[in-house]
Each structure stands twice: as C-alpha cells, then as structure tokens.
C-alpha cells in the first residue's frame, strides 16, 4: 500500500498507549478489532444505524464505525475490554450478567459503554432517561426491559446503595389469584429420580 495512505499513531485505549500503523481510511472499529485485537467491540451495520459498535471517546459514546482512527490523536478511547477493574466486573457488567440483560451478548458491549457514560453524567437515571440514552442501541433479544433494570441496579450499586432488585425481576410478577383457582392439568406427579424432588 502507498505509504501516503497509511497513518501511524499512538492510540490511548483503556488507559494504555498503543502504537498502531493502519490504513488511513480505516475506521476506529476496524483498527480496534483488526490492529489492536480488541474484538469486544462488535458491528451490526457499519453505517451508524444500530449502535452495536458504540465506544467512548473522551467519555462520550460514539459509533466507532463512523470515526476515523486517524482522528484519534490525543483522544481517550474506552472499549468494553477496559471496563473490568482487575478481575472484578464493573457493576454494570455484573448487573447485566445477573439480571438477564445480555442474551446473545452481541449488542451488549455497545450498550454497556453507553450506559457507563450515562451513569457518569447522571448517577441516578430514571428508567425513561435510561431508555432515552440507549435509544441509539438496538437489541433484538431482550425486549430492553432487562437492560433498563440492569442499568438501574448497577447505578444503585455504584451509588453505594444496599438492596437487591425486586422479586419480579428474577421470577416474574406474582400471578394474580383467579376465582375460582384454575386447576393444574393433572395432579402433581410423584418425584422421580433426577427431578431433584423439586415438587
């Protein structure tokens, strides 16, 4: 490749400096995944339409598919790989894993990064504010509510609040009592081996 079309830069990613040589027309998404081996950042359209590739640049969520890596000199880049503290998950990561906010996990890195920026700016976001902040990130698995709950509870934890999410987050809403009660389709069968006697 013609050297005129190459860029050499020291990128600042997740607190580390990394010298990289790349084709100038390559986006930050490509450079992160292909030159830096940071494949945690995913892509879903490469046209700015889905939010999957969202990362933070100087603390603000941006779409890495529409940013030239060549423009990143002096910028602070954060990706999902930089969220953990040592071996400990970031509260957002833990909440997403525990509350079902990640199913296939493909949109998850972009959503985590956007949520991180939101909490940094607004430590106590209301559900409507979470939805508004995440409105550029599409997810096809979850139906979004588990994600909103995950962000809410991570934010609470980051504020140092005690407590756990309500039961319905884990078990669904309590089933209203019908009148008269609807019978099960058959009497409960006796416990069988391997069924752990859970009935």
């Amino acid at each position, binding site marked *: 490749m013609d050297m005129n079309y190459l860029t050499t830069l020291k990128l600042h990613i997740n607190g580390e400096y990394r010298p990289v040589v790349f084709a100038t027309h390559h986006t930050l998404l490509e450079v992160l995944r292909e030159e830096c081996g940071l494949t945690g950042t995913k892509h*879903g359209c490469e046209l700015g339409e889905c939010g999957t590739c969202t990362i933070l640049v100087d603390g603000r969520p941006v779409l890495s598919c529409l940013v030239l890596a060549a423009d990143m000199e002096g910028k602070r880049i954060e990706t999902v790989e930089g969220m953990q503290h040592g071996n400990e998950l970031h509260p957002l990561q833990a909440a997403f894993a525990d509350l079902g906010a990640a199913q296939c*996990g493909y949109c998850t890195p972009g959503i985590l990064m956007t949520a991180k920026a939101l909490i940094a700016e607004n430590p106590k976001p209301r559900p409507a504010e979470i939805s508004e902040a995440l409105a550029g990130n599409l997810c096809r698995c979850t*139906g979004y509510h588990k994600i909103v709950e995950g962000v809410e509870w991570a934010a609470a934890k980051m504020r140092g609040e005690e407590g756990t999410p309500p039961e319905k987050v884990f078990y669904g809403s309590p089933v209203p009592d019908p009148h008269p009660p609807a019978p099960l389709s058959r009497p409960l069968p006796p416990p069988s081996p391997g069924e752990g006697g859970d009935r």
Partner: protein
Amino acid sequence: MANPLRKPEPEPQREPNIIGKPFRRVDGRAKVTGATRFADDLAFPRMCFARLVRSTVPHAIIVSIDFSEAEKVPGYLGALTGEEVPIPFGILPVSQDEHALCPDRVRFVGDPVVAVAAVTEDAAYEAALRVKIEYAPLPTISSVEEALATPEPRIHDYGDHGNIHKVVSMTFGEVEKGFAEADEIFEDVFFYEGNTHLPMEQHSAVAVPEDDDRVTLYSSTQTPHYVHRALSKVLELPASRIRVVACSNGGGFGGKSDPFNHEIVVAKLALKLGRPVKITLSREEVFYCHRGRHPVLMAVKTGIKKDGTITAQRLRTALDGGAYGSYGVASTYYTGALQTVTYKLPAYEFQGVRAFTNKPPCGPKRGHGTPQPRFGFEVHLDKIAVALGKNPADLRLGMLAEPDTVTANWLKIGSMGLRQCIEAVVAGSGFRERWGQLPEGRGLGLACGSYLCGAGLPIYWNHMPQSGVMLKLDRSGGVAVFCGESEIGQGSDSILAAVVAEVLGVALGDIRLCVADTDLTPVDLGSYSSRVTLMVGNAALQAAERARELIAQAVSQQLEVPQSRLVFAERRVFDAEEPDKGLTFQDAVIATEARFGTLATTGSYIPPRSPGRYRGAGVGPSPAYSYTASVVEVEVDPLTGLWNPVHVWIAHDVGKSLNPVLVLGQVEGSVYMGLGEVMMEEQAFRRLPRHLSNALVHKHPSILEYKSPTFLDMPPVTTYLIEDPDPQGPFGAKEVGQGPLLPIMPAVANAIWDAVGVRVDQVPIHPHMVLRALEAKTKGHEPRFGPKRFPDVDFGENLIVPTPEQGGDGKAINDYKETLRAGMRSASGTMMSREEALKKKKLGALTT
C-alpha cells in the same frame, strides 16, 4: 465408555439447588467482558477474505462472467464459480434446490453467483465490484397470485406444478357436517406480511484447512449438524474429514438454521487456496439470506354453536416462499398444524399452498409458520365473541382443548396451562371489567397461542437420538459436558450445565462445557423448533443420572450406606440419615474411578412416537406444547391512525422454569419481536415500472429502513410465569423461546378494535390502515382494512383422516402412497434413500 450397571436408584428427596433459581448464565461473564468469540472475532495466520458476488437481477440465465478487471485489484487471490461446487444442497431432503454458487441461472436479487478472495477484506470488496456478469433476463414472479397465473417459465424444475412448490390438503373429521350443525358461520380473510430475523450479528464463517483433506468451519450457525451434512455432500468429503464448530450466535431467531452459501464457499476456497478464508456478510446480504417469516394470505371459516362450541373449521393458507425451498414444505404444514392444540376443533380442514417467487427464500422465524394462522384465528375469535355477545376471555375459556387428549389432527397434548395463562392476564389487566369500557382511543385485546417443544421427528428420518450428551468425570472433581447444542443467546449452555450440576449436586463452576463441535461433541440437531431445553435437557438428565448411579454404587460400597440413602448436594455425596457421613464429590469420583476405571457416561433423547400416521403427520407432533395468553392495551389516535402499545400482560406456561431469569428474557424478547412485527417490521419488495425495468428488489435491506423497535418503542410488560409441569420435560420444563411471540400480534389487532371500533386484518398494522378503516366506518362502510379474497387454488383431493373421536387409527383412508411410505418409515435409512427408492417407483418426492 461406562454404562450404568443397573437402572438408576431413586435419590432421597431434596430441594433443588440450581434448577428454578435465577443463577447467572454460564456464559454471562464472557458476554459482558467482550470475551465471547463470535465467528467474525476469529483470526488465523494467513487468513484471507472472500466476498460473494450476488445477482443484481431477479431472474435470469447467466451468460458470461468476466474476472479480468477483478484480477487487477492488488491482493486478489482467486475466485470460485458455480462449476466448482455443482452439487445442490438444502436443509430439507425434499428440497435440495440450492447451490453454493449459481451454476447457470439466478433466481432473486442477491443470489450468489461467484466468490472472489483477496488478502484483505477491502480488496475482496473492490474485486467483487469489478466482476462483470452478463445476464439474459427471464420473466419474474413477485407474489402467490402471479405464481398461480404464471406456470412457465418455472423458477425450479421440481415442485407440485408450475411455480407452485407445495400443495397440501387434508380433512380431519366431518367438516361439512360440522358447518351444517353450527348456529353461525364466520368467515374471514387475513394477510400477514413477511418479515425477517435481523440478528444483530451478521452471519460470519471462517474455514481453516487442516492436515490432508480436512477442513474446519467456524460459523455463526444454529445448526452445525446440518451444516456438517451439507458440507460433506457438496465438498464430496466424508463427514469425518469435516469439522463444524458453531460459535456463539449473535442472535439467530431461526435465521441461522439453514446451511448457507457462504459457509460452503469458504470451506471450498480454504481447500482450494490452502489457507484460512473468512466471509462476514454485510447487513444487506443478511437480508438476502433471509429465511424469515413467509408472507401468508389466509382464509378461515368456522362453524360455532350459540354456546360458543366450535363445530368445524376450515383454514386455507397461501405462502409466498421466495426463490428456494428452505424449510418451506415444513412451513406450509405448520401454517395448519397447531390450530388444534389450543381450542377444541372436532372437525378441521386444512389446505395450504406455497409458491416460488423471485425473492429471497423464506423459512423459519420464531414461531415457524404458526404466527400467521394464529393471528388469523385469534382475531377471528375476537370477532366471533363480539358477534355472539360474549367476553372474548369467556369464549376462549369455554372451548379450551383438554390436557392429555389427542386432537382431531392426531397431536397428543400433555400438560395444558392455557386456562391459568388466560386467568392470569385477564386478572392482571382487569380485562373483564375494562374491555369494552375504556374511553374512545383506548383499548384492550386478548389472544392466546401454543408452540412445540421440539419437533417430534428429525429433518432426516432415522432412529438415532435427536440429542446426545456425554459426561467425563475424573479425579479433579470437575465434570466435562459434551453436547452438540449451539448457544444462540437463549441460554442453552446454561440449561445444559444446570441440569448436570443439579443431578450431581455440584456447583455450576465445576462444569466445563464443550458444545457445538461436530468433531468432539455428540450430535444434537441444533437450536431450532424450541427443542433444546426439552431434548438436550432430557439427554443431559440421562447422562447425569447414569454418572450418579455409578458414583452412588462406589460410594455406597465405600461408606457402607445403602445406595437409596445417598444424597448428591453441596458438592458432596452423603447419607440422608446421617449427613455428616459422606464424601466430597471429588473423593466420590475418585472412589468411582478406582472402582470402574475411567469415567464417562452418555445420555440421549428420542421423542415419543406420535399417534398420527397420515402423510404430513410428521409436522406438528411434539413431546409437549407450551401455552401463552396475552392482553395488550393500546392507544389509538383517531385523527392520524397512529397507535401505540401502552402495556402488555403476558402469561406463559413453561411447565417449569429451569432458570426464571432466562425464561423471563425469552418471554420479554418474544413480546418485543411480536410488537416489532405488528408495529413496523416488513421484508417488503419493489418492482420498478415494467416498461422501464426488470427490477424486483428488496425495498430497504438496511437496519435503518427495515424498522425494528428501539428502547423508546417498547411498552411496559408484566410477565407471569405459569408452571404446569409436563412429564415429558426435564424437571417438567417446556419451551419458552417462541410461544410467547404468538399472541402479541392478534392481541394488538383486537385492542385496536376495542379502542376505535375498526378491524385491521393484516400485519403489520400501519397507521394508514387504521385511518382508512376509520374513514370507512365514518362513511358507513365496513370498518375494516384487509385483504378481500383468497385466490382460487386447485388443492386437489383432500387427504381424509378420521379423528380419534371417530375411532380413526391415525391413518388417512385415501392415501395411495401409504403402503409404500409405511414400509419406508420402518427402514432405518435416511430420507435420501427413501427418496431415491421413490424415484424408482416414479411416485415423486415425499414430504417430511
């Protein structure tokens, strides 16, 4: 490999430690740290990139291909043409109609013609743009009606006739008599537009040549086993030389369950170039792979008594199949099969037709073939309730199918929690008090649904297990679990690990999984038809119980405690009566390894045989059926026709939640996807004016213009998990991945009627449709927007199948192929050999 020496002894009763608990999914950490490796995240030394050059014309003969400009692109490595991969493939044995690259003609815009490979993906793309292909255009077909009217030229030279791929027609019981006995007859016509899965991850595949004549394929596929089969066939390599590894899927929803062109192309190119080759599809190409929801036109006729008892139903469906077979034959049957498992239908007639059209092939999307007729049925019932002056909930509660019965079309219903589901959403939403009582512009709608827990028959009929699990235990105390299942986000890895850990009383952290690797794992047919929890769960249960039995024998001997008193819990094996007396699980395994030698057990699962014996009876049977009911509240603006879902109540009979958080995720995800379908999602096509152009193109193959709901479009959801355990399911569990989608679309349509008194009998419900129906209402016309008529189709002679109530034996009384078919089924061969046998008899291809 060790086998249990005798039937497992029952374990003393104990509370489950993992099952039923909201534990963190086993792949949870990797997914939130970016550590999960999706197919496109893989890179190998010397890996190069390929790109498919896809047809830009909808139907044509390929005249010439010119690579001369492409070859000039720096980094160009070579190309692959259809001549090099001439063997056809397809997911169903009866429709092996696809080629990795089109050998002579193209059938839709997006059909792959050649592939080019280059050192970088940039260069592969540039080279692909420079390949010149000359076409001789053929007439095009864009709808079922056009296919019916245009038998020639044929898109395929197989199928029932002309451009009709498949016709099915069957009668169960005395339908005409049923109509005659009815007090009222209701007839409706509905249309359900096609839509697509839109997984966030674009399909990706990497092939790595290994050793001599071996190749490994890493792919985002839901069905590594079927990809394995197709590769073996097309590459003409023994299956033992091909390894398929399914990476974690970044969403599937049915869209990654066919073997695909790009998977075969990278494998062939890797062998040709002698280096790893990757193809990651662009978003546009994902729309061309499609295999999504068929557009279906439906006509439903129901006879009903004044008391709300259905006497008979006739359903006709017309499916726009797109350019290839895919799962289409099964899809066609599915548009009729599951109508009978929710409400009592004593007599039922089903006629379906699938046409070939010059569009991307349709296939299985979440709910496979059943959301369309379910929409029709549930809106139809709402109209019936209104006409009879009944509350829609009471009408349904009065006609529920009963547990432990066999339906008119010979499906065996086991547990059936629909009554509890309806009661839950009706109580939760205040449906009885609020339906029909809300102010203008607000409305409530109720609908139900049911889905399979895995298809009763495998795609290739045989007597082998549909799911296999293998355990390896050793002195480390860890348990390695091997299974062919593939994780697509639904949590199948977690269910597999949880079942094993529960039975052996160990922690999830003690389990190591090796999944979806055709070299290393026992066959599982894949993550489709909601089969994994039930089938993999049962196979895992069996493997774990066998391991427990061996360990119990060894520990019983060592501790001198009767085996029946041994409890496996808290990573120990101990005496139920004297809990301090016991071994750690690790020591227990050591004792077992010392006694029996190296420890491994297997488990497998074959569904029970269904009672249906007629042609087509293979589609619909399942070990169990899940049930769902939903109430949706909407607001509608009568000035604009704009409407919004305000709240969704949904209750799903999952049998037993193995992990309630994962179950809730599937329910809410289904609600979301159902709302997307009814609010906005459309796989729509466009013809240009014929005097100017032959174009027939996807309207909007992009994430921006194929609309899918954002965070801001999702209403609150109240979810009730109903647990009516089914004896067929592991721990009583049934499916949850697909069923909860089914009631959403009709519940919305019914709610719009309650809000503004108009019917939109099609999906999606665009605001202009609501507004048009409102205008019609104002003018005193029928307050409805929807299709007017069902096309004239020659369905031929119906297969006549007496129902169980009539004392039938599950067979048709007029199937002239039956004798031969019965003989074939008893043989142990695959569909392929049966098909060949049939050819000899000149009877044509069989259906699944």
